[in-house]
């Protein structure tokens, strides 16, 4: 099989080369993944915290429902729900751009997994930490804000790293509602040029590179926030 990399220097018919197009698609991928990450970590931390509240069974139940709901429906179906079904049921959403809807879909989907990690992280803390904070006169909110969450986040950094890499990879599903990201580019450019192998190789490399960058950034953060003498065992798990 002969590879012809010059395809990337060819004009795609709108005045830009396929290389330019791919870089733009890459920016879309990063934009989708980055925005979704903010949504996912915010909602995940919130819901994960709710699930560990000691005296609020209804809040715990609410957060459990959240996790089960977003964890047991395939991401692609969730994206279709946000993109097609939500605007139909709530007409106000018809004005919301598709990009934002996909960010909600991907963000909430991932938030369920992060909520699981946050809960596990908080529950991994010795009970004494909570009691010590309460004995110092902290309110529940202060206990979480100043004592438990900072520790829990350090504990869950390794699984959070792989979940963030998953999020980046999962952003590829956005092709299904025509977000102009890398996978969409791969499919369209393959069709236009019939140079699928070169295009797919380049796109695959872009994904691998981006995932690797995420990995490096997180290990940097891990080193930065490390508490001397506090060792965290790495966690492994399934998932994509």
């Amino acid at each position, binding site marked *: *099989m002969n590879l012809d990399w010059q395809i990337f220097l060819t004009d795609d018919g709108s005045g830009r080369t396929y290389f330019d197009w791919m870089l733009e698609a890459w920016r879309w991928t990063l934009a989708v993944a980055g925005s979704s990450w903010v949504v996912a970590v915010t909602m995940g931390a919130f819901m994960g915290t709710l699930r560990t509240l000691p005296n609020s069974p209804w809040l715990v139940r609410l957060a459990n429902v959240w996790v*089960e*709901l977003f*964890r*047991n*429906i*395939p*991401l*692609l*179906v*969730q994206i*279709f*729900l946000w993109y*097609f*079904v939500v605007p*139909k*049921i709530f007409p106000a959403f018809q004005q919301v751009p598709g990009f934002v809807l996909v960010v909600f879909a991907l963000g909430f989907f991932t938030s369920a997994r992060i909520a699981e990690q946050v809960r596990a992280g908080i529950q991994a803390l010795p009970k004494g930490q909570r009691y010590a904070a309460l004995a110092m006169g902290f309110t529940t909110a202060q206990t979480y804000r100043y004592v438990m969450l900072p520790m829990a986040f350090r504990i869950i950094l390794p699984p959070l790293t792989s979940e963030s*890499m998953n999020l980046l*990879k*999962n*952003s*590829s*599903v956005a*092709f*299904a509602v025509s977000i102009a990201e890398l*996978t969409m580019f*791969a*499919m369209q450019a*393959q069709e236009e040029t019939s140079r*699928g*192998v070169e295009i*797919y190789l380049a*796109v*695959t490399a872009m*994904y*691998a590179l981006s*995932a*690797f960058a995420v990995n490096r950034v997180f290990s940097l953060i891990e080193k930065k926030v490390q508490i001397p003498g506090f060792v965290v065992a790495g966690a*492994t*798990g*399934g*998932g*994509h």
Partner: protein
Amino acid sequence: MFGLDLSFFDLEMLRKFVLQGFIFSVQLTVIATLGGIVFGTLLALMRLSGQKWLMWPAAVYVNVMRSIPLVMVILWFYLLMPFLIGRPIGAELSAVITFVVFEAAYFSEIMRAGIQSIARGQVFAGQALGMTYGQNMRLVVLPQAFRNMLPVLFTQTIILFQDTSLVYAIGAYDLLKGFTNAGKLYGRPEEAYLLAAVVYFVICYALSWLVKRLQAKIAIVR
């Protein structure tokens, strides 16, 4: 309700559109799980073999697969299969091959963790009894590793089942496609997506409930 019309939803519709897709999704899940566990276990054994020429290729394979989005892997195989085999193959067959190859990487990580969870003493005991490497793995280590990892393996299967919906990228006829086609024909695409979500949720929630029970059961035995 909410401007939705679910009147097209009946047994006739399920039988005509959804059943075929459902059967394919289940087949894909089962074949990919079994194939993934077999090849994944082999990969795990390679990575733990201590032989450089076995460890290295297995590690590269697993890490490459795990750093590529599944959608891209599905597209890759659909593109390359005709070159490799010499003739075009259907989207369904391509999907089955893709999922076995892809999931093997994930299952191998689970099996590797499972094998490493077995106490070293077990291996030494097997060796002391005069077992060969193969016997030791087959009779002592793998059965226990498999058992320890059973809940994780099932959880991965549930994730796998959800991921089968991604064959949408190459147009294979799966559960989701069944609903999509029905929605198109009856002019109710939004309702069809909603129903698909409910069906996926019920299946996955029920399965994860079963896994939770299994986990409790295994924990008691130990």
